[in-house]
C-alpha cells in the first residue's frame, strides 16, 4: 500500500519549467564609462608616427601561416589582397574535412610547404592535408592517444589551441600533458616529452610557441590547485631546458638579479611566498595556458599567468604573486626581467593569459615599443615592453569590478561595492569570470591601425564558499551565475584604436564571440559566431559583407593563406564548445545555471541554435 501511494505521488508530481530562465541584462547604470575610468600617462600624439609591428617581429608575409599568431608580433594580419570588400560576396567553400571529434575546436589551421595541419580537441588527433591536390587529400594522421582520464581535469572543455610548424616538425601539446614533435614528412613522432601530471590537476591546452630552437609550453589547471609553470624545451630533442614556476620562492620563479619590475609592489624578496598564507602558493594556480610571445628585437619572451586558486579569495589573503599578471623572461634561461600584475589578489578569475601584440606605437610624442593586451579584467593595456610600464589602460568591455587602473602604482582601483565576501552574494559584477574577453585572440592591421577584439558582454553574481584542496579535483569555492551585460547582446567585435584610446566601431553579437579574428590587407576581418556563422566585415566600418553557415558553432582561430595556385584562401575550424559552449558539447544540463562554472546561466539557449560538430572549412573566390 505504501509503495502504491508513493507511486501515485510520483506520477502527479508537477513539472518544472522545461527551459531555464535567461537572466535580465545588467543595467547600463551599473557600468562605469570609458571617460570615468580610462587612464593614460600622456594624451594621444598620433602625429609622432604610424602604428605597426617591426620587420623583425612581423617579417614580410610569405603567404604561409606557420604559427597560430601568424608572426612573433602576433598581428594575425595577412598581406593577401585578392579578397576585397567588393568581391567577398562571391566567397565559396572550396573543401571541408570532418575532424571526427565533436568537442570545442579552438585551434588555428597551420599552412606550411603547401600542407595544412590541424589538431583537434581531445584526443588531439593531427591531420596533414595536401593542398596541391584537388580536395586536399590526407597525407597522414597522427593519433597521440592521450590518457582518457585527462578529460576529467579540463575546466572548460577538452580544447586544444593549435600547433606550430618549425624546421620540418609539427609541434603541439596533448590534454594529458605531453609536448610532441611530429615529422611533417612521415607523420611519426620525432620526440614526445611528458610535462604535466594529471594527478596534480595538470593538463595542457595551449599552443606552444617555437622560437630560436626552443619550444615554450605552459600548463592548464588554474581551477585544480596546480603549481603553475612555463618550460622551455630544446626544439630538436624535446629535452627540458628550464622551468619557471608562477608562485613560490624566487629560485623557483627564476627571479634573480636581472629582475627589474617597474612598480614598487612587485619589488622584494620571495614575494611569490610572502604574498600568500603559509604553503598556499604550492596549490595557488597561476597556470600558463595562454599565449607566449617572442620578441626578437629585445630578445624576451612575454607570457601571461592565470588566476590564483581557489576562486574563494578569503582562503588566500595577500597579492598572490605572481598570478593574474605578465612576465617578461630571458628566452635562453627563463630568468625573469619584469612582471606586471593586472589583478593583485584576484577575486574573480581574471587570468592574465590573453594575447599580447607587439607593436611600435606613437605615445607621448615619440615611437615606443609596446605590447597591447586586452585583459580578462576588461581593460586594454598598452605596456612599454622594455620596462613593463603601463602607458594606458582603458575599458573595452563593461567594467564595474574596478574603477580604473592607477598608473602611478600600477594597481587597479578597488570598487568596494563589488568586492566579494564569504557567504554573501554580490550581484552584477562586470566583467564576468571569463572576462571582458577570454583567450580568443585579436588581430591588428597596420593598414587601419586598428585592433580587432572579439569579446564578451557578460556579467555575473558571485557567492564565495569554503573549499577543500583534494589533489586532482577542482579547487574553486565559488557559486557563479552569469548574466548578459548592458543591452543584452552577449558578444561584441570591437575595432579599437590604441593611439586614440577609443573604439572606431563595434558590431554586436547575440552570443559571446569565442573565436579569434584575422584581418587581411584587403581590409576584411573574419570571425565566427557560436551559432555557426562565419562572417566577413569591412575592417574600416564593421559592415557585414559576407556570411556562411557551417555545421556547428565556431570558437577557433581563422587564418588566411596563399594556396599552391597563387590564390588567397580563408580557413577556419567549426566545432562549438569551450567554456562558453560546454552547454552544447557537454554533456551539460541547461537547467543548472551554475553548471560549467556558472556559464550555463547565460548560455542555456545555445542548444536551440547549434549542435556539437567539428570540421575544417576552406573558402576562396571562384577561379
Amino acid at each position: 500500500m505504501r509503495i502504491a501511494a508513493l507511486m501515485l505521488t510520483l506520477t502527479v508530481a508537477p513539472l518544472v519549467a522545461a527551459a531555464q530562465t535567461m537572466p535580465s541584462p545588467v543595467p547600463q547604470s551599473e557600468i562605469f564609462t570609458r571617460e570615468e575610468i580610462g587612464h593614460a600617462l600622456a594624451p594621444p600624439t598620433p602625429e609622432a608616427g604610424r602604428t605597426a609591428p617591426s620587420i623583425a617581429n612581423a617579417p614580410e608575409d610569405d603567404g604561409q601561416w606557420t604559427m597560430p599568431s601568424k608572426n612573433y608580433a602576433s598581428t594575425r594580419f595577412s598581406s593577401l589582397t585578392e579578397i576585397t570588400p567588393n568581391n567577398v560576396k562571391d566567397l565559396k567553400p572550396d573543401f571541408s574535412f570532418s575532424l571526427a571529434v565533436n568537442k570545442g575546436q579552438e585551434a588555428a589551421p597551420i599552412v606550411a610547404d603547401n600542407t595544412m595541419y590541424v589538431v583537434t580537441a581531445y584526443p588531439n588527433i593531427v591531420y596533414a592535408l595536401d593542398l596541391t591536390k584537388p580536395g586536399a587529400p590526407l597525407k597522414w594522421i597522427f593519433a597521440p592517444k592521450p590518457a582518457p582520464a585527462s578529460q576529467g581535469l579540463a575546466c572548460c572543455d577538452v580544447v586544444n589551441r593549435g600547433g606550430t610548424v618549425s624546421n620540418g616538425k609539427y609541434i603541439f601539446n596533448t590534454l594529458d600533458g605531453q609536448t610532441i614533435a611530429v615529422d611533417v614528412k612521415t607523420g611519426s613522432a620525432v620526440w614526445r616529452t611528458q610535462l604535466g601530471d594529471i594527478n596534480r590537476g595538470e593538463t595542457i591546452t595551449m599552443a606552444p610557441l617555437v622560437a630560436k630552437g626552443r619550444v615554450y609550453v605552459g600548463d592548464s589547471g588554474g581551477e585544480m590547485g596546480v603549481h603553475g609553470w612555463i618550460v622551455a624545451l630544446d626544439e630538436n630533442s624535446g629535452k627540458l631546458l628550464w622551468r619557471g614556476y608562477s608562485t613560490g620562492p624566487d629560485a623557483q620563479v627564476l627571479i634573480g638579479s636581472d629582475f627589474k619590475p617597474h612598480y614598487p609592489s612587485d619589488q622584494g624578496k620571495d614575494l611569490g611566498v610572502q604574498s600568500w598564507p603559509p604553503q598556499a602558493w604550492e596549490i595557488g594556480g597561476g597556470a600558463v595556458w595562454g599565449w607566449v610571445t617572442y620578441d626578437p628585437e629585445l630578445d624576451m619572451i612575454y607570457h601571461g599567468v592565470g588566476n590564483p586558486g581557489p576562486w574563494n579569495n578569503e582562503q588566500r589573503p595577500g597579492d598572490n604573486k605572481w598570478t593574474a599578471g605578465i612576465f617578461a623572461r630571458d628566452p635562453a634561461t627563463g630568468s625573469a626581467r619584469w612582471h606586471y600584475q593586472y589583478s593583485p589578489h584576484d577575486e574573480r578569475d581574471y587570468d592574465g593569459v590573453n594575447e599580447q601584440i607587439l607593436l611600435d606605437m606613437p605615445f607621448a610624442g615619440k615611437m615606443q615599443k609596446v605590447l597591447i593586451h586586452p585583459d580578462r579584467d576588461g581593460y586594454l593595456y598598452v605596456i612599454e615592453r622594455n620596462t613593463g610600464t603601463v602607458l594606458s589602460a582603458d575599458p573595452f568591455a563593461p567594467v564595474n569590478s574596478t574603477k580604473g587602473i592607477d598608473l602611478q602604482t600600477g594597481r587597479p582601483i578597488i570598487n568596494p561595492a563589488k568586492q566579494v565576501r564569504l557567504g554573501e552574494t554580490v550581484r552584477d559584477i562586470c566583467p564576468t569570470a571569463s572576462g571582458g574577453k577570454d583567450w580568443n585572440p585579436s588581430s591588428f592591421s597596420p593598414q587601419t591601425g586598428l585592433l580587432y577584439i572579439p569579446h564578451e558582454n557578460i556579467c555575473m553574481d558571485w557567492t564565495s564558499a569554503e573549499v577543500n584542496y583534494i589533489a586532482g579535483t577542482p579547487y574553486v569555492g565559488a557559486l557563479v551565475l552569469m548574466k548578459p551585460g548592458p543591452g543584452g547582446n552577449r558578444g561584441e567585435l570591437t575595432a579599437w584604436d590604441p593611439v586614440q584610446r577609443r573604439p572606431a566601431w563595434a558590431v554586436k553579437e547575440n552570443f559571446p564571440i569565442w573565436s579569434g579574428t584575422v584581418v587581411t590587407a584587403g581590409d576584411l576581418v573574419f570571425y565566427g559566431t557560436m551559432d555557426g556563422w562565419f562572417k566577413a566585415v569591412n575592417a574600416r566600418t564593421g559592415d557585414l559583407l559576407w556570411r556562411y553557415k557551417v555545421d556547428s558553432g565556431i570558437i577557433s582561430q581563422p587564418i588566411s593563406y596563399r594556396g599552391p595556385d597563387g590564390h588567397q584562401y580563408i580557413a577556419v575550424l567549426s566545432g562549438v564548445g569551450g567554456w562558453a559552449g560546454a552547454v552544447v558539447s557537454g554533456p551539460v544540463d541547461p537547467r543548472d545555471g551554475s553548471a560549467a562554472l556558472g556559464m550555463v546561466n547565460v548560455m542555456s539557449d545555445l542548444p536551440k541554435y547549434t549542435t556539437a560538430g567539428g570540421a575544417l572549412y576552406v573558402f576562396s573566390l571562384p577561379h
Partner: protein
Amino acid sequence: MCSRFPIEVAALVAILLAGCNKGPQQALPAEQPSRPGVIDSALDPGVDHSLVTTDPRAAAYYNNADAVNTGKHLFAQYNCSGCHSNGGGGMGPDLMDDVWIYGSRLEQIHQTLVDGRPNGMPSWGNKVPDQQLWQLAAYVRSMSLPQTLAAQTDNTPSQTPAPVPPEADQGAGWAPPAATTNDYTTTIKGAD
C-alpha cells in the same frame, strides 16, 4: 553455471541454466567464475532479459531523507560539485537528466564512486568512508527525481533533494522506471 550473478535471484537460476543448454549459447564459456557484483553493462549475453541484482547495503538509503541531505553536503565537501555543478555538469557529465552511462541504481552509482570511471571520474573507494559513498549515491540519484526537479525555484537545482523511493530502482538502471525521472532534454525546440 554461465551466470556471473547466480546468488541474488534464485528464481532466475533455473532459466539461466535452461538457456545454457540452448544451441547458440554454447559459444559462451560453459563455466564462469561466480562473482557477486554490480552489473556495469545493459548487455547481458546468454539471457533474454536483464538481470537485476540488489546489494543489501543499498536498502538503508532508500526513503532516507538524511542520506540525500548529508549527500548534498558531501557533494560540495569532496569537490564533486566542482565537476558536476549542482547536477548540471561541466568538467564532468550532468547528473540531473535521465541518461545513465553506468546505471542509475544506487548500487551502480555507488560502484562508480568506488571504482571511478576511465574518462575522468576519480576512484574514491579507499578514500571516503563507505557510508558516505552511499549517501552521495542517494543524492546523485535524487537529482533527477520529479520531486527534486519540481522543488527547483531558481537557476540552481538539487537544493531540496527528495528521498529516493525504492521503486526508482525497480528497473535494471539504464532506463529508469516510468515516473521516477523527469526528463526535459528529449525534445529541444529551435529558436524562433
